[in-house]
């Protein structure tokens, strides 16, 4: 996995406005005007954010001169998810093993209590 691309993706994601824009684009393509609506922000300011997202490959823009709708691109997010996934698996697998140890320890202590000992 290209680390510099991951760097670019995380840098682009490190801003709440840009994340909100991506969240909005999850629901489908949108124009700059539509994207600017929920923010107290000028169109040029929103355009700046869109450029960052576009450079990072997180969005693409249509060719239509007037409309130029923005669309979400999955690839960089997929790389971020893949990067996180390894850590999640390591963490979860460890925890699942330790939960089995919890269970063993509980059972072993139960058996040690004289009241629970089976009369044989």
């Amino acid at each position, binding site marked *: 996995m290209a680390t510099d691309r991951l760097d670019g993706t995380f840098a682009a994601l490190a801003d709440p406005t840009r994340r909100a824009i991506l969240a909005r684009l*999850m*629901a*489908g*393509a949108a124009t700059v005007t539509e994207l600017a609506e929920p923010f107290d922000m000028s169109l040029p300011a929103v355009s700046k954010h869109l450029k960052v997202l576009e450079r990072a490959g997180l969005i693409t823009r249509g060719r239509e001169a007037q409309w130029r709708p923005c*669309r*979400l691109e*999955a690839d960089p*997010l*997929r790389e971020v*998810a*893949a990067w996180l*996934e*390894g*850590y*999640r*698996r*390591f*963490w979860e*697998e*460890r*925890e*699942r*093993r*330790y*939960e*089995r*140890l*919890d*269970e*063993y*320890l*509980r059972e*072993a*202590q139960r058996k040690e209590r004289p009241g629970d000992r089976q009369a044989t």
Partner: protein
Amino acid sequence: MSDMKVVADPGTQEIVITRSFDAPRELVFKAFTDPEAVRQWWGLNSTETVVDRLEARPGGQWRFVEREGDGNEYGFHGVYHDLEAPERIVYTFEFEGMPGHVLLETIVFEDQDGRTLMTDTSVFQSVGDRDGMLQSGMESGAAESMDRLDDYLAKARG
């Protein structure tokens, strides 16, 4: 949620895991050094653990095999460097699927009013080995989660 913490500072060769267990440390120590105990808990719910060898003494060898339902087997082995009941175990660890990548693991058990705090420090031979371990299972797991992300994105985009 348990209190497990995983620390892997960037650029280092270590992974440090801490977690507490609701049992006295004599029992926790036994869980790591008694073959029957290891057979019962080591591994995952989907696997069966075979304790091929567990010589709990300095210089002793260990080898555990995890067997999946479909017959796949994963072997792990190493040598005990040091055991001090009930507070410390030091051993080497090698996954047989990746021979040559050996790590040194030190497990320390501290008594906390009848509970046990475990600190498990693994030192790898390289930063790359350490990072590889942190990203373990990535290929199979990532594929699955990518499918889900694709589904989600496909739906989201209409």
